């Protein structure tokens, strides 16, 4: 009994430490917003940006773009880091609104929890621009997302270019993200449209659920069912890299693989020659674009949507070819 009590005590202490650890990160989060409170100045207008998580390179670039554009346009700037935490996202963003920002830009870590934020903003007449991820079906003013469809088309055009003069079959396959990833699914649709225009047939469209290990097994299955495949498009880079590994393991180097995201692992695979391309999103210009949109709304202009029903505005993407990274 004593031993058990001791163990329970130890666990409680361990837990206390663990919770203490979490508390600490909360503290820095709050001190971050406290610091920023000082930067709210009385003169001029202020744009607040609530970022998903500054740990990730993607969001660091997005923040850099947002900040530089805010400063270039002469607004004051407040940053809030959600640290991938739903609670921090909601409390932090509402805190920004209460501090009196004139426009809110947010890349939400949990789009489905956006509604209370958007409601609070609307109550104060603060426009909300969502940067990437998703709008959670709320009443935001605009959402900026990468032009996934066009990115898929670029991937297809590049594949066709690489296959010019190829005597092989005209069979290609697509490894898809999960059906709920609505934006990612457009990548495959764009690819399909252009690759079929060029006379190729998409023989298989399989879902790898965005996971690299499923990219690997699906590639193995594709090699078994369609050994004469000439190209594969993966809707994200982890699956593309998984597929590239399966190909390399099988000793095949005659199938072109293009991914999407511009992840470091895809660049590595391209350097190693196992992958041929990836379509990179451009978080920095996405950040800049959100500020321009906020500015348009603050100066009484109207937005020019790419898709008016969902209030989507597309940001351009860049195809990275294997020749670019050598």
């Amino acid at each position: 009994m004593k031993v058990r009590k001791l163990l329970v005590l130890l666990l409680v202490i361990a837990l206390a430490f663990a919770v203490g650890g979490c508390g600490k990160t909360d503290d820095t989060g709050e001190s971050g917003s406290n610091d920023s409170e000082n930067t709210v100045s009385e003169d001029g207008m202020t744009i607040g940006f609530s970022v998903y998580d500054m740990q990730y390179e993607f969001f660091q670039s997005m923040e850099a773009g947002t900040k530089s554009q805010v400063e270039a346009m002469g607004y004051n700037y407040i940053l809030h880091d959600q640290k991938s935490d739903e609670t921090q996202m909601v409390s932090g963003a509402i805190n920004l609104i209460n501090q009196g920002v004139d426009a809110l830009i947010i890349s939400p870590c949990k789009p489905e929890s956006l509604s209370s934020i958007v409601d609070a903003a609307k109550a104060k007449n603060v426009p909300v621009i969502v940067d990437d991820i998703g709008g959670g079906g709320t009443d935001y003013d605009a959402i900026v997302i990468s032009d996934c469809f066009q990115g898929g088309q670029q991937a297809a055009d590049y594949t066709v270019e690489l296959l010019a003069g190829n005597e092989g079959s005209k069979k290609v396959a697509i490894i898809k993200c999960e059906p709920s990833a609505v934006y990612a699914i457009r990548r495959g649709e764009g690819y399909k449209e252009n690759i079929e225009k060029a006379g190729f047939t998409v023989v298989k469209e399989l879902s790898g659920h965005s996971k690299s290990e499923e990219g690997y097994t699906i590639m193995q299955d594709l090699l078994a069912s369609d050994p004469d495949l000439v190209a594969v498009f993966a809707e994200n880079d982890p699956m593309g890299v998984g597929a590239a590994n399966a190909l390399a393991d099988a000793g095949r180097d005659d199938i072109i693989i293009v991914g999407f995201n511009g992840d470091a692992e895809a660049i590595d695979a391209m350097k190693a020659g196992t992958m041929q391309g990836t379509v990179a999103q451009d978080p920095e210009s996405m950040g800049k674009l959100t500020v321009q949109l906020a500015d348009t709304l603050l100066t009484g202009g109207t937005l020019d949507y790419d898709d008016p029903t969902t209030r989507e505005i597309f940001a351009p993407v860049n195809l990275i070819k294997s020749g670019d990274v050598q």
Partner: protein
Amino acid sequence: MNKKPYRGFDYYWKRYGIFATLLITLAVFAILSPLSLTPNNLLTVLSRSAIIGISACGMTFAICSGGFDLSVGAILGLSTCVFAANLPLFGLLPATLLTLLVGGLAGMLNGLAITKLKIQTFVATLAMGMIIKGVALLYTHGSKQMLSRTENAEAKIFSQNVNIGSLQVQLAPLLMMALVFICGYLIYRYTRHGVYTRSIGSNENAARTAGIPVDRTIIIVYIVTGVTASISGLIRASQLMQGSAVLGDGFELDAITATILGGTSLAGGKGNIWGTFIGAILLAMIRNGLNMIGLSDEYQRLTIGLILLAVLAISGLQELREEKSA
């Protein structure tokens, strides 16, 4: 007159049901996609089932002891990280041993939480899974630990394709699976630990009264699940040449599914090591076959769910009849 063939079915289903299901599945896929019967594809399915199978072998003991382990996915993820991070530093053997050690340690913590802190296995392993994934994310700073196919070529040892004539197979996973299952069977059938595990699963209090070292046995059971999950992790890290905390997401359910398909009862006390072996192959075969046919994600989920339900319903109804006749 009527009763005897009825019993006959039960008798054969119990012994060979899972095997018959495997053959029927194979036959169905052979008709729908003849290429799935090629020797190379069958070998791919076999070697692929190793990742699930090896963990499921450990899981069989856990389920047989009346619990189960929801943390194997996280342990697999952490194992890939430990392996990929340490291989470039210390070489193949030390990295492998360290990985297995970490898996065993994680399992031991599971066992301690269950026996010494009296936390229910569901909650204990669920919480441990979260903690382990958190540790893996901290360990890798949330990014992926990449291995180079040229500089760290020795990592390929666990997934190297071997050519035998026109056959191509990843031999290492097959051998590892064979070894794990032979050891598992011998332990289950012929050792005191096997008897203890079954007794605890049937009736923990009775086992305790009978003087069986319940706590020690359970701790060993979870150490084994941890180590087997680590072995699966080694193979996955070797295939994908990377370590990442997310590589085991959802994996625990595969391991549990294979075990239950194999005839091990969730009620505890009754395990079936070879059934688990076939269950793992069946699961890998179903996924492979559905991909070969090219079924979309929605229908794949539907089909797998229905097959599971059908197999388990036959076993469930049979148990019901046994209870009635008893």
